[in-house]
C-alpha cells in the first residue's frame, strides 16, 4: 500500500464511524457535531485526491456555513440544553431508505469503476484548472444552476416572509 492508501484508510474509517454516530447519537446536537467530523473527512478525501479547491469548498460551505445553520436552528428550537436526550421513532424506515441508497450507489459505482480497471493518474485540480473548465466548457450548466439557486433563494424568502397585517 502507498502512503496515500494508508491515509485514505484512516480518513475513511474516521468518516464512516462518525457518519454512523450521526444517526445513532441520542442527542441532536451531538449528531450535528459528529456530522462536522464526517464532513471534514469528506473534505480530507477530496484533498487526498488532489482536488484542493473542492476540498476547501467542502469545508467552507458545509462545515463553516451549513452545520452552523443546523446548530443555530437546533439550538433555537428543539435542542435540549445540556445532557438531555431525544429519540427518533422512525428508525426502521430510516434503515430501509439508507440500505436502498447504499445498494443503489454501490451498484452504480462498481459498475462505473470496476476493481480491475486501470488506476487513475492523480490529477492536481488547481484553482485555475477548475475555473477554466467551469467557465469555458461548462458555462451553460453553471449558469443554469445559478439561476435555479437564485429561484430557490427567492422562493425561500417569499415563504419565510411575514407580511405586515397578516
Amino acid at each position: 500500500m502507498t502512503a496515500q492508501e494508508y491515509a485514505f484508510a484512516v480518513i475513511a474509517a474516521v468518516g464512516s464511524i462518525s457518519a454512523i454516530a450521526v444517526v445513532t447519537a441520542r442527542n441532536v446536537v451531538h449528531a450535528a457535531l459528529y456530522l462536522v467530523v464526517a464532513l471534514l473527512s469528506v473534505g480530507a478525501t477530496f484533498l487526498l485526491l488532489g482536488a484542493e479547491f473542492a476540498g476547501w469548498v467542502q469545508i467552507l460551505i458545509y462545515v463553516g456555513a451549513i452545520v452552523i445553520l443546523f446548530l443555530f436552528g437546533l439550538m433555537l428550537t428543539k435542542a435540549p440544553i445540556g445532557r438531555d436526550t431525544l429519540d427518533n421513532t422512525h428508525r426502521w424506515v430510516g434503515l430501509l431508505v439508507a440500505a436502498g441508497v447504499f445498494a443503489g450507489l454501490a451498484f452504480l459505482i462498481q459498475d462505473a469503476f470496476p476493481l480491475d480497471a486501470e488506476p487513475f493518474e492523480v490529477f492536481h485540480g488547481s484553482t485555475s484548472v477548475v475555473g477554466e473548465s467551469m467557465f469555458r466548457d461548462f458555462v451553460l450548466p453553471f449558469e443554469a444552476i445559478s439561476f435555479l439557486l437564485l429561484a430557490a433563494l427567492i422562493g425561500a424568502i417569499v415563504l419565510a416572509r411575514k407580511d405586515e397585517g397578516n
Partner: protein
Amino acid sequence: MILAETGVSVFSSLFSNFWVVLLLKTIAVMGFFLVVPLGVGYVEHKGLAHMQARLGPMEAGRFHGWAQLVADGVKFIQKEDVVPAAADRNVFSLAPAVAMIPYIAILVVLPISDSWFAENLDVGIFFVLAMSSVSVIGVMMAGWSSANKFSLIGALRAAAQLIAYELPLVIAAAAVVMQAGTLSMIGIVEAQQDLWFIIPQLPGFLIFMIAAFAELQRPPFDMPIADSEIIFGAYTEYTGLKFAFFLLAEYGGIVAFSGIAAVLYLGGYQPLPGIPIPGPLMMMGKIGALAFFFIWLRATYPRLREDQLQRFSWLGLIPLSLALIMGVAVAKVAF
C-alpha cells in the same frame, strides 16, 4: 537573513527530508501562535488601561506594571477548573480547542516574507476564510454544553453574527483576488509590488475590517458577550485554563485577521518604496499596527444593539460589497 527564491519556504530550502521539514514548520507555527498573540494580549491589557487611565495593571513587577502578563498567566493556572453539574462534560471540554485550532491553521499560510512561511497553498486565501468560519462551532459548542440560558443566547448571537458578516468578508476578499488574479497569499502580496491594494480597494478594506471585527466579536460588535445583558455569553461558565484558551483564540484571531488584512490590502511584506526595511519586519509591523487598531477601537466605540448589528450587515455591508465586486469586475475587464 536567509535568502531563498520567492515562493520556496525557508524550511524546504534548508532541509530536504520531508519529516524534518514538517517538524520544523510545526514548531515554527506553534511558536508563532504561542508568542505573538500573547504579546497582543499584553498590549490589550496595558494599552486599554492607559486609554482608560486605569491604575490596576500598573502594580505587577513594580516598574510600570511590566509583569502583568506573567501575573495573568499565574492567575489563570491557579484557578479551579469548574465544570457545571448539568453541563455536557465532553463537549464543554472540547469547545476551547475547536475555537482555537482554526486560528493556528490560518498561521500556516501566513507569509512573513517571500521565503518565511510554512505552506504556500494554491487556494491560500480560500483556506483562510474556510478556517475562520469553523471557529464559531467552538463557541456554539461552549454555549450549548454549558446548560445555561445566557450561554446559549450568547452562542446564538455569535452564530447569527458569523452568518451575517461572513458574506461581506468573503466578497471583499474575492474582490482582491479578482484584481490580483490569484488565490495564493504569496501571489497576492507579489501582485502589490507597485501599488498596495488599499488604494484601489479602499471601500473593500473598510468592509473587510468591519467584518473582521464582527467575526472576532470585538467591540463595537461584541453583542455575543454583552456583559450588561448576558453576563459573558458563551464563556460565562468557563474558568481557569479553559477560559484562557478562549482568550488565546481571540488574540490568535486578532493576529490572524491582522495578517490577512496586511496581505490583502497593505502589501504584506512589501516595503514602502525607497525605505529599505526587511520584509519580515515590515510584515510584523503591519500586523502589530492593525492589532493595535483592534484594541484601540475597543476603548473608543460603544456596543451596537443586536438588531442594529444585523441590520448594518444585511442592509449596509452586503449590498455595498456586492456593488464593490461588480465595480472591480468592470474595471478588470475595462483596463
